[in-house]
């Protein structure tokens, strides 16, 4: 039955009381009113509506009763203010009932607010032996939002509180509300509350709403404006300070949206982190993590098994024993929240639902634009990449140098991969990406996010190919990468000097992007020393490849020169005095003077040609050198990354 806010009483939100509560409260009221010999006590509170002033409970008795509840005096004061007795000057049935509910709420550890009494609550406990209030009944009654014409004040133990969802009240669970921040007395159960819903109802009341933008901030409870009472003057100021303090307490993810459950919202960085973690366990973001893998991973969080079990239960929406990416993010987020002290919710918050997570998968804009710029710059060399391939590439475990390097693709359809995509450079073209990277990525753990990402920018096909060919330290199966180009690489480089040139020319732009390990020349020099220590094979290969390249390079320039000279010197056997071909040139003898003069001019031309050719060769070799230096640096980076991984694997704490 309802105790409607009678106009005559001028107070009282509509309350729904359970039978037990009804009985108890009416009895208490009777006791209080009867003791004072005040107006006739009416059982059903509806009568109070009709007889506004007639039914009152003596203030003294009521005060005694309240004190018996063993709440601090301040709380009681607030309760009396809230229930409106102060305002109206007496304890009518509605005020009394509201006060009793508030006492129950306060005894449950809830802040003294009107919303507290909207939910199921145990009966208030009073230390007077004669009351039957000590019996706690389960409260299946649902309380609807009040019209809240009573202003209420903010209490000192003002904490975030979640209210029942109507649909969650089907379970006959015992009292469930509790503040979100961690006062030690809070009951363990939580229910998500659509605060906006509650607030909309509050708004409809006559009171003015506190202007604080609760939707944009943490969903703190806002007291209503003080239009109708003295206590209202203080609350707004309290409110603002408390809001600020709470927003500081909370994690700073604060997206204004329809969902007020800010602690359950996943921020960008968090999402990135979760996705990276997911990739560390399962490289394919569209696939799922098996239960045992996830169990091992989450066990590292050092939460208790029942809690982990419950988190799993919440997050594995389809109960298939495996976690897809959104499920994994939700589970991870719950674990993070739990470790930060947030108690676990009763049900999965809407911001953690898989559909929501999937729909809300973000696309980091800056990375996208960068990616687009790259793709523009390298249109010709872009080959259509499979999405699958891209998916296999992990962003974060860029400890694996080659892996991120290959992440480049030209397509960015998948939203989840957009972030990754953007981070990868598009420079890589010709190398076949393959799934063999996956085990490699799965081996890497989470530590090196920034560095790996940066590395991806620097990759070029040539470097990668060379790196593939030279790279023993990277985790095993990359055979295809290694053999695919290692043998043919040099020839390609040799006979297509222009291509590497352009690619290496495009190298410099990537370093401008985010956290790239500094590609300083000095580092390269130092790495050159470290390089042989790090990779003997790579160094050997590097040594061999440059040598291989050198000789071919040296030859072609000479050949054209020779060839060029031959037609010029068709009449004579005088060979060019080119520097590269010294032998035949020295054989030139016995020419007529004119022929010699012609020859000298021709020689000059030849020399100039030779010079030009040599310069070209120099340029090519210089580029090659720079590329090799680049590789050197990257290998060094990889080594550092691996060392870091090793360090981090030792303590084993991931979370």
């Amino acid at each position, binding site marked *: 039955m309802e105790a409607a806010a009678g106009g005559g009483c001028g107070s009282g939100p509509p309350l729904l009381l359970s039978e037990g509560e009804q009985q108890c409260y009416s009895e208490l009221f009777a006791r209080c009113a009867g003791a004072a010999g005040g107006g006739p006590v009416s059982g059903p509170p509806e009568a109070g509506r009709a007889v506004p002033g007639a039914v009152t409970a003596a203030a003294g008795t009521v005060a005694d009763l309240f004190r018996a509840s063993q709440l601090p005096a301040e709380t009681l004061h607030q309760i009396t203010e809230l229930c409106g007795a102060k305002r109206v000057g007496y304890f009518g049935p509605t005020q009394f009932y509201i006060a009793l509910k508030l006492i129950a709420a306060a005894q449950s550890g809830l802040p003294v607010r009107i919303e507290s009494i909207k939910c199921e609550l145990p009966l208030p406990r009073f230390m007077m032996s004669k009351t039957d209030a000590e019996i706690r009944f389960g409260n299946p009654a649902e309380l609807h939002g009040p019209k809240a014409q009573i202003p209420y004040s903010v209490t000192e133990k003002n904490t975030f509180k979640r209210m029942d969802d109507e649909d969650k009240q089907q379970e006959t669970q015992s009292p469930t509300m509790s503040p979100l921040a961690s006062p030690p007395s809070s009951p363990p159960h939580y229910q998500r509350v659509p605060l906006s819903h509650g607030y909309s109802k509050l708004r409809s009341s006559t009171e003015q709403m506190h202007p604080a933008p609760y939707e944009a901030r943490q969903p703190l409870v806002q007291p209503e404006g003080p239009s109708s009472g003295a206590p209202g003057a203080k609350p707004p100021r309290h409110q603002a300070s408390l809001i600020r303090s709470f927003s500081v307490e909370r994690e700073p993810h604060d997206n204004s949206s329809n969902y007020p459950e800010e602690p359950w919202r996943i921020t960008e960085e968090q999402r990135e982190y979760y996705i990276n973690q997911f990739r560390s366990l399962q490289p394919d973001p569209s696939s799922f993590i098996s239960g045992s893998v996830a*169990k091992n991973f989450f066990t590292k969080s050092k939460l208790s098994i029942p809690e982990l079990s*419950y988190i799993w239960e919440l997050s594995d929406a389809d*109960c298939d024993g495996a976690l897809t990416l959104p499920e994994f993010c939700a589970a991870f987020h719950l674990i993070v929240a739990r470790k930060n002290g947030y108690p676990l919710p009763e049900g999965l918050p809407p911001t953690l639902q898989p559909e929501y997570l999937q729909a809300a998968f973000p696309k980091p804009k800056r990375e996208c634009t960068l990616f687009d710029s790259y793709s523009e710059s390298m249109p010709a060399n872009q080959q259509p990449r499979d999405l699958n391939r891209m998916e296999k590439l992990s962003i974060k475990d860029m400890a694996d140098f080659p892996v991120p390097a290959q992440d480049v693709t030209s397509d960015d359809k998948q939203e989840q991969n957009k972030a990754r995509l953007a981070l990868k450079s598009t420079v890589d073209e010709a190398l076949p990406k393959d799934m063999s990277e996956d085990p490699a990525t799965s081996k890497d753990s989470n530590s090196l996010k920034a560095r790996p990402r940066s590395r991806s920018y620097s990759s070029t096909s040539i470097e990668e190919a060379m790196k593939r060919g030279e790279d023993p330290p990277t985790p095993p199966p990359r055979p295809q990468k290694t053999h695919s180009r290692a043998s043919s690489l040099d020839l390609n480089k040799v006979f297509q000097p222009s291509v590497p040139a352009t690619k290496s020319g495009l190298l410099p732009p990537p370093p401008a992007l985010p956290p790239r390990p500094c590609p300083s020349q000095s580092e390269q020099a130092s790495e050159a020393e470290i390089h042989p220590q790090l990779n003997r094979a790579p160094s050997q290969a590097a040594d061999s490849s440059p040598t291989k390249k050198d000789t071919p390079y040296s030859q072609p320039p000479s050949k054209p020169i020779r060839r060029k000279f031959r037609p010029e010197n068709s009449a004579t056997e005088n060979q060019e005095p080119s520097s590269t071909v010294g032998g035949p040139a020295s054989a030139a003898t016995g020419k007529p003077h004119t022929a010699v003069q012609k020859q000298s001019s021709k020689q000059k031309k030849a020399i100039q040609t030779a010079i030009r050719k040599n310069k070209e060769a120099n340029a090519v070799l210089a580029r090659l050198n720079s590329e090799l230096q680049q590789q050197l640096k990257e290998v060094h980076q990889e080594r550092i990354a691996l060392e870091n991984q090793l360090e981090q694997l030792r303590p084993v704490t991931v979370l």
Partner: protein
Amino acid sequence: MAVCVAVIAKENYPLYIRSSPTENELKFHYMVHTSLDVVDEKISAMGKALVDQRELYLGLLYPTEDHKVYGYVTNSKVKFVMVVDSSNTALRDNEIRSMFRKLHSSYTDVMCNPFYNPGDRIQSRAFDSMVTSMMVQVC
């Protein structure tokens, strides 16, 4: 509406047992325990030749004056036992079967949780809520 629901492991120890709180819980525990013999009898009688065809739903195990006990066995020899009030004549066999099916699917969901070790007591809240929905609504 069941009065008592129990999940018994293969080794005949309870994984989960819950009774309506109004009555003497010990009595229900005892009834479930005695029903295990009947369950064993049924599955041994049927299961020798026709293990594959053995139906999971065992039907009425035995009636007492106040209650009826129904049984259900999974293929992994996990038994579900349900005690219903005899006075509840509206309950039909189909309904009992559907209740057992719900139990079974919830149990499967519990098993899917990698943090649940088979043989542990079932502490899943989802399972609890499902059983609550099946049990007699007290108060």
